[in-house]
């Protein structure tokens, strides 16, 4: 998000999901789309069935990669050289959209200068992708009338995540593949309402609707609306809370529906910091690993027990309606927060989620026209929706970027924080699978979902299996500088030699004991996708 905010001015999908169906070329990077966003994958495949070309950039041969016309199996962490290589090919072969660059962008010369200094053979060698393949991908993408780029956590979960995103934006602007229908840059969000949470300011530096905390005008608006003094400086990010932030002593935390004890990197550090808190409260559906450390646990209600809205990747705000009564002894997060607030001396007395939505509409301009009665029928609305008459916005940056002109922000290769060496010779990537969700709090309680994917598996290339004498199905010891787990090996050609892959859904094999705390400084996103590990026999 931070990446697109600086290049385009706004950090969400530029297109709507259904526009992907009508693209001619779809470039997918760092997204295991059929497993993580199956509905978006559906649109991609429908487009392919209609003749669209699919390019997949992913170190692994994911199911989507098997259906792609071009699969660029790059070395993890080399997205910038790969994209720079594509852009260099595009410029060299006169495939750039000069008119668009001239009219709609700024700072092009900085990008052009950087690319001029780079050598294509070297770039290809860095990425491990054949130069011919890079060329093909570049030509295919550049020549299309309508091309979309979809990316996900394979792009952002790196120390250079923001730079990766900016480079993607550069590629789109270079070829004029943005600002039009069925064309653009589409980050796919990692959770069903993370977009909504960000929209509402669940970020340390902004109030709802991305109004900066350190902007006196915005701050005053909220102070007046809420009748309290608000901090003038941004707060600390999630990883700062669980890993510690220099100069900050965190005394207490209230964690709602998140399980950092399994999902944050460097789990030992997380545990230490959570245990050092004076007070920890957790609201969740089940007693998760994090809840087990809490002083107070609030049993929270599920999605089926409450009414409200979710906002998805394409900025669409949709109603979620209560279907069953709130279970005994449980309360909705809203009810818990309001009661806590009251006891802490600040009355919050909303009679209904619809009333809360009215306040959102009042204070968050991009939600200016979002009211429950408008959202009740149909399929919701996409922000920005400025007022009651506004129908919502299917695609962003039509005719102009949110920030005026799109800005090229060139970047060179930034190496991952930790790469394989003699002691830890393999590269570990982490991700998700279809049947489990995050730390399995909900999914592992479903008998059928559990059966489909009952245990953690470490994907290992046959060459490495031979090298380390590992048989298929054998339990091995996987270690990094930070921790060790035992996990069952799955020998497959889907990962390249030198790299291994596993998921973070299983508490019995808590992979985040091994992952690294290094993060993208601008976005705060940890580098889950790269760290160095070794395999030993058990």
């Amino acid at each position: 998000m931070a990446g697109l905010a600086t290049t385009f001015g706004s950090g969400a999908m530029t297109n709507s999901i259904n526009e992907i169906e009508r693209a001619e070329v779809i470039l997918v990077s760092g997204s295991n789309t059929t497993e993580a966003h199956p509905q978006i994958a559906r649109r991609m495949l429908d487009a392919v069935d209609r003749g669209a070309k699919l390019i997949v950039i992913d170190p692994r041969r994911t199911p989507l990669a098997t259906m792609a016309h071009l699969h660029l199996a790059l070395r993890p962490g080399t997205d910038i050289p790969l994209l720079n290589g594509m852009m260099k090919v595009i410029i060299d072969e006169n495939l750039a959209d000069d008119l668009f660059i001239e009219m709609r962008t700024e700072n092009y010369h900085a990008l052009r200068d950087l690319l001029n200094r780079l050598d294509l053979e070297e770039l290809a060698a860095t990425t491990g992708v054949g130069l011919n393949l890079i060329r093909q991908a570049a030509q295919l993408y550049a020549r299309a009338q309508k091309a979309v780029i979809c990316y996900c956590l394979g792009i952002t979960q790196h120390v250079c995540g923001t730079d990766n995103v900016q480079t993607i934006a550069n590629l789109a602007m270079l070829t004029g593949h943005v600002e039009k229908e069925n064309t653009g840059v589409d980050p796919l969000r990692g959770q069903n309402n993370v977009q909504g949470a960000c929209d509402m300011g669940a970020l340390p530096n902004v109030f709802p609707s991305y109004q900066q905390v350190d902007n006196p005008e915005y701050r005053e608006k909220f102070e007046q609306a809420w009748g309290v003094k608000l901090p003038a400086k941004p707060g600390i990010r999630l990883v700062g809370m669980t890993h510690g932030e220099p100069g900050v002593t965190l005394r207490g935390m209230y964690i709602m529906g998140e399980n950092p004890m399994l999902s944050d990197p460097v789990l030992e550090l997380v545990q230490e910091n959570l245990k050092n808190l004076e007070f920890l409260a957790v609201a969740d559906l089940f007693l998760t690993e994090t809840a087990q450390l809490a002083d107070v646990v609030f049993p929270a209600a599920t999605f089926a027990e409450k009414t409200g809205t979710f906002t998805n990747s394409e900025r669409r705000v949709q109603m979620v309606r209560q279907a069953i009564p709130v279970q005994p002894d449980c309360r909705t997060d809203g009810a818990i927060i309001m009661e806590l607030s009251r006891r802490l001396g600040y009355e919050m007395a909303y009679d209904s989620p619809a009333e809360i939505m009215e306040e959102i509409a009042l204070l968050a301009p991009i939600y200016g026209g979002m009211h429950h009665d408008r959202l009740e029928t149909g399929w919701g609305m996409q922000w920005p929706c400025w007022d009651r008459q506004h129908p919502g916005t299917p695609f962003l940056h039509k005719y102009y970027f949110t920030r005026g002109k799109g800005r090229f922000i060139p970047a060179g290769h930034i190496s991952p924080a930790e790469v394989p060496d003699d002691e830890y010779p393999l590269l570990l990537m982490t991700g998700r699978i279809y049947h489990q969700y995050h730390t399995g709090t909900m999914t592992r309680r479903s008998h059928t979902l559990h059966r489909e994917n009952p245990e953690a598996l470490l994907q290992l290339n046959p060459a490495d299996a031979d090298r380390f004498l590992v048989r298929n199905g054998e339990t091995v010891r996987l270690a990094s500088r930070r921790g060790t787990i035992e996990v069952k090996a799955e020998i497959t050609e889907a990962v390249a030699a030198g790299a291994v892959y596993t998921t973070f859904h299983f508490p019995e094999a808590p992979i985040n004991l091994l992952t690294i705390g290094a993060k993208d400084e601008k976005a705060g996103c940890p580098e889950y996708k790269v760290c160095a590990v070794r395999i030993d026999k058990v």
Partner: protein
Amino acid sequence: MADQYLLKKDHLKPFIRKLAKDYRIVAPLLNEHGDTMFNPVADLDREEVDLDNQPQNSIKQFFFPQTEAICEYSCAEPGRYEFREAELRTDPTIFFGVRPCDLSAVLYLDVIFLRDAKDPFYLRRREVSILIGLNCNRPFENCFCNATKNGPHQEFGFDLQLTDLGDRFLVEVGRARGEELVNRWHQFFVPATASDSQTQYQALLEARGSFPRQIHVDQAIKRLREGEADPQIWQFLSQRCQDCGGCAYVCPTCTCFTISDHPASATAGTRLRSWDACTFSGFTRMAGGHNPVRRDSAAIRQRFLHKLLYDVEKHGRPSCVGCGRCVGICFGGTDIVRFINLVGQE
């Protein structure tokens, strides 16, 4: 020989009210979100019986619930391990407004659960059920019961069947239980005339002629009987199948299930039977990891061959009843109609 009566539309609700005195009524009900679903009627005056829209569910779940306890077990000490039948509550039920697709489906379920080994749970529920069918005057968006040859009008298997003739229903008596109901509540019924029968026949012709497109089920079956379908079709569909199991859940004739133990404590638990789908990997995966079915190339092969070939060979007709629910729900675009069309194009 079916007797035929007329029931005025004005008298429908009063008739149902009378039925409700002796039976649980399950009928299509329209809820406040605009969804029509078969559900037990709790309050006839507060709930809306909807005979205009296709219910999103079939009545399968009332004979074969999504989850049910098949037995309880206790293992208090290592030397003791006992099983007890689970309690099965059955309410005599009238299923009202069951369209030909769903009614044919029950006849198929009867074969699966009762013909060879009698399934005690299904039998108990079926024994106390009465089926009042409702012929269709027009197909819904995804219907193709004409192609599966079990609609839009049903010829047998019902206890009573209604056909909407405008201001009145033609009521056909199928089986003895239907006759009993008509006799018990005779005040609502007058004999139908030949002209009414004729009107019903006209309605059938009109319904038959209203299908928006023809689905070539016969051709697909013929092709499958000739030999293995092109593996590329299996692969194409298997890659796009999103492994959600939705088709098996909404399908009125899917009967695959799994059995699992659910401990209640260290010394006792319940053994449950629950719906399953042959499209899931875990459906066939063996202990040790071997799987005779490769998901990426054959995930949906058993599903379609079962419905369109194996059941034809075993029972004489496909088990797909053309209700179109899988077409409506499939997120991957890999429903049975897509398959039939692909096989037809070969």
